[in-house]
């Protein structure tokens, strides 16, 4: 037989439970617009008899009310991992597409003022020299035009190199951000573990920690793995950067200039303590690494090949020529300004005196314009400088367009993954309003029950007997 006042206890437990559930609903509503918030739900459990009945410890009561045994975080770890994955790929794709777009700005074709036009104007300047080989004026004009051409090639090369350095700086900042986030995750893991072991719900801490894991995913493509006591370990490739409450720092390792990047000397993200390389295959850092290690060096080398091809094809014809005074061509027409092999950054015009421009092909017939004509005939040749430049721009155009298409697709995929996750863990105010009604009525009903029991007991105590 249960005690006389056990009914009141039951009603009281109901009041407490409904109030607690109401507060949880309040917490959800308060955080309806908080990014990364996972909705919570109070877990109500009916209290009844003991789980193991015994001969002399039987239970014959009606039940002991209700208890809130915990506050659950409604989320789906699979969807969360998928959303992190797709966000990482999206960040990588964004980084690549932006870099290619910046490289496109260096070669603003099709246009009447860019390198393609400069090349055509230089060939035409040679043709004008061929038309009046005895005049110094077209020769001066040729030297000016050639200077414009080499100046623009130098500027393009410098632009690519500046972009490389800027991107490297950004990557270095990204690695610092990763280190800060990893430390944050470690600290939160420690707090969560302590709370879980003490039986205290740590849902808000878990939300903050998950937001940091999301950030790590989009920065370097890290993945989170559930550990014990609510802790999440973060792995980058196969190595862990956060294990429980310990975090490893990372750093950037590799060449400091565009010119130093080769197939064997590349930028890598490594563990700060021992230089062990981490495999960064996704995330913003992966996109940056691809740009720094292969895209920018690739185009810079193509530009260098264009410059050296231009110099060698013109110089080959030039060296067979004779200048205005009948002397054989002295030195080269195009050369490097610093003594190194001709590249995009150092190509320049070595001739300064218009009289030294070697237009003639025969020292005996000084106004014969054979050399000037041959050089002018290099215009538009598919295997000459024009063809090389056109290939460079065509390659760039295709690569950039592909990157943009991939970005659009990946944006859509990442959005869908994020939407699926939101659908599970997002707060719906309509739902919360409905729950609010339910808990509110529950509270009112429990109060009513208490009232009824009270008046029953009142009858019993005050009315019966004298």
């Amino acid at each position, binding site marked *: 037989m249960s005690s006389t006042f056990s009914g009141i206890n039951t009603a009281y437990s109901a009041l407490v439970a409904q109030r607690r559930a109401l507060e949880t609903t309040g917490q959800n509503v308060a955080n309806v617009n908080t990014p990364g918030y996972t909705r919570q739900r109070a877990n109500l459990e009916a209290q009844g008899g003991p789980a193991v009945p015994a001969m002399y410890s039987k239970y014959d009561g009606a039940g002991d009310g209700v208890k809130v045994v915990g506050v659950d975080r409604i989320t789906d770890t699979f969807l969360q991992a998928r959303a992190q994955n797709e966000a990482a790929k999206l960040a990588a794709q964004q980084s690549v597409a932006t870099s290619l777009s910046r490289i496109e700005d260096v070669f603003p*074709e*099709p246009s009447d003022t860019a390198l393609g036009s400069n090349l055509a104007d230089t*060939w035409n300047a040679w043709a004008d020299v061929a*038309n009046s080989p005895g005049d110094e004026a077209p020769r001066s004009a040729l030297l000016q035009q050639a200077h414009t051409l080499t100046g623009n090639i130098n500027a393009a090369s410098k632009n690519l190199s500046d972009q490389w350095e800027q991107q490297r700086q950004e990557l270095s900042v990204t690695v610092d951000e990763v280190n800060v986030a990893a430390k944050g995750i470690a600290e939160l893991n420690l707090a969560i573990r302590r709370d879980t072991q003490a039986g205290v719900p740590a849902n808000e801490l878990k939300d903050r920690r998950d937001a940091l894991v999301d950030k790590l995913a989009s920065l370097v493509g890290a993945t989170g793995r559930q550990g014990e006591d609510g802790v999440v370990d973060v792995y980058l490739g196969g190595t862990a950067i956060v294990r429980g409450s310990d975090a490893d720092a990372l750093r950037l390792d590799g060449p400091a200039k565009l010119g130093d990047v080769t197939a064997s000397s590349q930028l890598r993200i490594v563990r700060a303590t021992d230089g062990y390389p981490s495999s960064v295959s996704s995330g913003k850092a992966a996109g940056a690494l691809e740009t720094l290690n292969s895209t920018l060096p690739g185009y810079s080398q193509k530009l260098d090949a264009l410059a050296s091809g231009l110099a060698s094809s013109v110089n080959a014809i030039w060296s067979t020529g004779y200048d205005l005074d009948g002397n054989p061509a002295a030195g080269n027409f195009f050369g490097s300004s610093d003594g190194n092999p001709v590249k995009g950054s150092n190509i320049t015009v070595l001739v300064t005196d218009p009289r030294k421009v070697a237009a003639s092909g025969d020292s005996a017939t000084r*106004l014969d314009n054979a050399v000037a004509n041959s050089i002018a*005939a290099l215009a538009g040749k598919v295997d000459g400088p024009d063809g090389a430049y*056109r290939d460079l721009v*065509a390659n760039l155009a295709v690569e950039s367009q592909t990157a943009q298409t991939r970005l659009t697709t990946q944006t859509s995929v990442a959005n869908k993954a994020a939407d*699926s996750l939101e659908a599970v863990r997002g707060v719906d105010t309509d739902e919360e309003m409905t729950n609010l009604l339910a808990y509110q009525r529950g509270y009112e009903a429990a109060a009513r029950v208490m009232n009824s029991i009270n008046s029953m007991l009142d009858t019993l105590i005050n009315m019966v007997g004298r």
Partner: protein
Amino acid sequence: MTGISRVTYHQLGISSLRGVQGNLDRISNLQTQLSTGRSVNRPSDSPSGTSAAMSFRSDIKANTQYARNANDGIAWLGNADQALQSSLSITNRVRDLAVQAASTGSQGQTARDAIATEVRQLRESLIETANTTYIGRPVFGGTTAGAKAYEKNGSYVGDTGQVLRTVANGVQVRVDGSGPEIFGTGDEQLFTIVNDIADHASGDPAALQDDLTRLDKALTNLRKGAADIGARYNRVESLKQGADDRKLTLNKGLNEIESVDIAEATVQLQLQQVAYQAALGTASKVLQLSLTDFLR
């Protein structure tokens, strides 16, 4: 997601925003196209279009240069042609005088002396004509840097080079005339023959018959040279016309690739703006409703 998925308010807001952003992006692209008038503003807008446009541009520049070269060549050849026409008429006059002097019966010594003097004058004119220049360069002197092709005494001071002009892709045309070929060399040279005629007119009229035969051969040569120059003149003119025509075609092709169809782009812009308005309207209607409006 299969089945009925939960949709939260936040989600509605985000998806409306995404839709509106997408619309704005498309509107912005169309505006860029309309304001630049080009549909290919960056290489990635159309890789094949960019490649073709660059190719067209460089061809247009090349053909402009060909037309310029051809103009220069036409001037050279025109001058040479005129010079040869006057040489022909002077030489014909010399021939008439020689025939006159050869008929010894009707001419006395004084008459023949007068003829000799005139022939000598005509020889000087011939040499002057052979020294015709174009922009300071003798048209019959090859590639010499000097100002003359022939000295007063008839010796050739030009050189053996050719003046070539590129008037089409891989096509070079010679725009000067070779003095030795047109006027002859050694004993067969026109000026030597005319000199001989002058000498024989006053001294040895019997030799004039022989001179006349030689003069006829030189005249044939001269006519051949004139015909050759005339033919080349026509060729360069037609090649120049070709270059100009090709430029027109290339420009048209470039326009087709690069330029935006204004009418079509404007219509698209209107459609996008309507879509944008619809998206905004929908978003505002949907986001206003909530259960809280209905609970007391």
